[in-house]
């Protein structure tokens, strides 16, 4: 499927914000056999004093900008045309959970894609006894790693309500878990925490979701802003599989990836707040429309 994606993020400051520096991860990635960026453009207003581009540790596209003087507002406009391949049919060849550790021990790598990065705690995903106990119960009967991932995602989707008002970007995952309310970021962090606790390496994917569903399908939650879902490592044979716990589905043709990392810390779309004495207001809008090829 081919999509035209438009993302707008605006920050308005109450008063002038002192000179600042941002790291932006807003542009879709090109992923072999899955996702291809045909064209992408990122416009920043006002025009930054400096702008440069690099790939970060996890191979995400990363734009760095800085301002010299004070600004009242900043706006980021990202436009991209992206081809997204449909999901291949999936056969479960993942090992039992108990055998995953043994397979991991045969992997002598800390390259970006190595599952070892996604096993322990990370900046936004600390260990949680509550989530661990819950996950152990849910996955107790799972015959395979893939099944455990699916079961955990489904269980969380069943128990937890999508609620944009319930949490903020910095709400700890345990708090969202306790309330069983939250947005895609909370669903994703809780799932990552649960999967790691049962021994499955798991990471965070940021991206976009198709705004208007194909005929006959329901509109997906999280399409109005940047979306997040989970990638889980399901053994040597299957490798990385992506699940969207907010919508209880595999991430497939409707999901376009921007960045991957251990958690939100590694993929935050806009890093580096400007210093300001007053408050600030953020607005974000996303439009992802299928275009005929």
């Amino acid at each position: 499927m081919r999509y035209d994606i438009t993302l707008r993020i605006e920050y308005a400051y109450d008063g002038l914000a002192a000179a600042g520096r941002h790291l932006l991860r807003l542009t879709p990635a090109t992923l072999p056999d899955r996702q291809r960026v045909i064209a992408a453009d990122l416009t920043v207003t006002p025009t930054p004093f400096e702008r440069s581009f690099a790939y970060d540790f996890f191979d995400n596209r990363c734009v760095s900008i800085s301002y010299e003087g004070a600004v009242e507002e900043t706006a980021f406009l990202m436009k991209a045309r992206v081809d997204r391949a449909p999901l291949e049919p999936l056969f479960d060849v993942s090992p039992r959970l108990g055998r995953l550790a043994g397979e991991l021990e045969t992997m002598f790598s800390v390259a970006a894609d190595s599952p070892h990065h996604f096993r322990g705690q990370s900046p936004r995903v600390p260990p949680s006894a509550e989530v661990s106990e819950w996950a152990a119960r849910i996955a107790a009967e799972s015959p395979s790693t893939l099944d455990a991932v699916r079961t955990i995602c489904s269980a969380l989707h069943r128990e937890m309500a999508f609620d944009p008002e319930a949490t903020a970007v910095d709400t700890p995952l345990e708090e969202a878990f306790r309330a069983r309310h939250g947005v895609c970021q909370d669903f994703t962090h809780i799932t990552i925490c649960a999967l790691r606790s049962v021994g499955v390496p798991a990471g965070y994917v940021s991206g976009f979701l198709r705004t208007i569903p194909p005929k006959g399908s329901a509109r997906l939650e999280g399409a109005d802003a940047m979306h997040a879902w989970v990638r889980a490592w399901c053994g040597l044979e299957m490798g990385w599989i992506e699940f969207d716990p907010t919508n209880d589905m595999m991430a497939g043709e409707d999901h376009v990836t921007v960045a991957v990392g251990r958690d939100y810390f590694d993929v935050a779309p806009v890093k580096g707040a400007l210093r300001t004495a007053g408050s600030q207001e953020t607005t974000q809008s996303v439009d992802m429309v299928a275009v005929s090829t």
Partner: protein
Amino acid sequence: MTDPKQAAEPPAWDSLLESYRRLPGIADELFDSDGRVRPVWRPFLRDLAALNADELDHALARGSQYLRDAGVFFRQYAAGDSTERDWPLSHLPLLIESGEWQNIATALMQRADVLEAAMADFYGPNRLVADGVVPARLLAANPEWLRPMVGVQPRHGHYLHFLAFDIGRGPDGKWWVLGDRTQAPSGAGFALETRMATSRSFSSLTSNANVMRLAGFFRRFRDTLLGMRDGESSRVAILTPGPLNDTYFEHSYIARYLGLMLVQGADLAVRENRLMVRTVSGLQPVSVVWRRLDAEWTDPLELNESSQLGTPGMIGALRNGSFTMVNALGSGALETRALMAFMPRMSEMLTGQPLAMPNIATWWCGGEAERDYVKAHLDRMTIDSAMSTRLPFDHGPNVVIGGRTVDDTPLDPAWIDEHGPLLAAQEVVSLSTAPALVDGKLQARPMSLRVFVARSGSGWVVMPGGFARIGHSSESADISMQRGGAVSDVWVVSDNTGPVETLLETGGGAARRTRDASLPSTAADNLFWLGRYVERTDFKLRLLRAFHVRLAETGGRDYPLAAALSDHLESLGIEAEDPIFDGILEDMRSALRSAGQVRDRFSTDAWNALVDLTRTTEMFAERVRPGDDASRAFSVLLRKTSGFAGLVHENMYRSTGWRFLGIGRAVERTGAMMTFLRVFTAEDAPDGAMDLAIEVGDSVMTHRRRYAAGTSRDTAIDLLLLDDMNPRSVLHQLIAIDDHASYLPVSVEEVRMTSFQRRVLEMKTALATAAPREINADRLDDLANDAASLTGLLADTYLG
């Protein structure tokens, strides 16, 4: 029968050693394994034993006094609180024979090479992981392995430049590495201060003890730092987390000792991927940073987002190769306890050599075989966090020692299986004992050494000395300074000493004057406010004294002048009477806070004068009564503020920083005097106001001499506002500010004169040409407004 060897020992030190108990199965620094005093100690013990009780007391007191005078402290953390503590000096030095020291040094230089190669691998090709020497999982879980630094090559080819090692001597007499300090090791400056203090105590002994000197080590490391600059005009900065850090004293001390610029994260900025320092002459490039700040806090953009101590964009500048970081960000990864388990194989793999000095036996519990071994030998293991960077005897909250948990219950071995990858086990250490002086006698206490290793042009150099931590009881665990352990100087004793070394260049060529290093804007700001607060204190003290003198003379408060004075004090935020001292104590503490931020920039004596002023005031606050008692107390305090001013004026180098201090003082005095004159020369001012003005202006005698008639408004205005010869007059302040400002840097846009200078000159001219009679109430208001604008103009021009 007497053993002839025993009989040959001089008995002189017998009484010193009468309570020295060595522990069975533990090595000792004073006695060798045959129970004989090691030769290196003999001359020292003989000299020590020759001192009588008084002489010994005096010797120890000289050492302690030195540290107090130098203001050496470290910060001690307790729950939710931290306090400054005196440096815990154990007066007796630890003596090591130079041959043995050479072996230690050689082994540690080899270890430094291994660590450098490990850094290059962890942040480069990752062969250690690929070849299975270091588990991938362990490196990936290491919070100090900084992903943004992977692939970033250090500008001068080296990741590590300054290291410290904690080592201890095991029961077999061999040395073991207890911990590697690779991130931002502290203690080198404390080692130097400890040396100074110990020399004060035993100077007569030092001279014949052939103790190796420390200065050469520092000189060579300074040369290394300077040599990595981009030419003579670029800068080396020491990056500190600031005065609230436990070793801030050392940062300011080292900066002063080496003549390097001390900065905090907010002083730095990144422009076009280059690191700059904000100075009073604008942004200036920095090409070498010696950081005393843990990596996590250096760049809020790519590392810890909540850091207020860092500089956004710093990692980008490193990636761009625009400056050298000492040590490279991410070097903290090497401090991780679990990594020690793999050091022997890392050494073989990276350098083809076994470790010359082993480290303490360590097992990472991520592997099944290791877990089984640890479970089978619980009785001689300490189990703690795998990622801990503390020393072996500095335990975390969930430590398991000898198979028992912190609440002293036996450990369930299943716990190790459950938390395996998060745990590292180490063999319980038995440190050697060394002598400590307790009530005039020597006692055996556990000790470990901290040894410093730095990079020079020709390879690693090892500081010939360092410091030893001495436990306060015979338990090894009590060695940490945070728990009350003490620190002693380490004397490496050679058969002959080299020439005395100091940091100053000697001989050869004319003395070279180093240029006045650029003054960071925050330092300028702090010096300016220090000047203001001290002057503010001084002025308020004068007003308070005037009030209490009158109170003592008349016994009453309810006449117009007393009321006016009391009102004026209140408008300045202080009570004339109850409580007498609270208001000025606040100003004094503000002065101390500002001074604390710039301790590298003014003298220890001046600092001590400020501390003394505050402590005395706090003491007075407890017991001084209003009236005569108070007026005498204020006189005492005024002599102390004058003492501070004198130290600054007489002893401080006329640097840019000194000028900001001077401007602060003059600006404050201008403002305070203007405000005061407006009130006390007003038409409705009460009787006696003019006399009071002359008194507060410290000009009673001058007035008597200059004006035959009594005080009038004109004479007061003349003397306190317009007389350029009176050091308390406003015109005198403006002349001083104008003079200071002429030495300050001028930016390109303001070639002729800054807006600050222009305002000062306008005021100065207006006063210089005015007659007392022309200065009516409106003119005073205008002048007071102009005076109030000076701080803002100064900040806009220099401190932005």
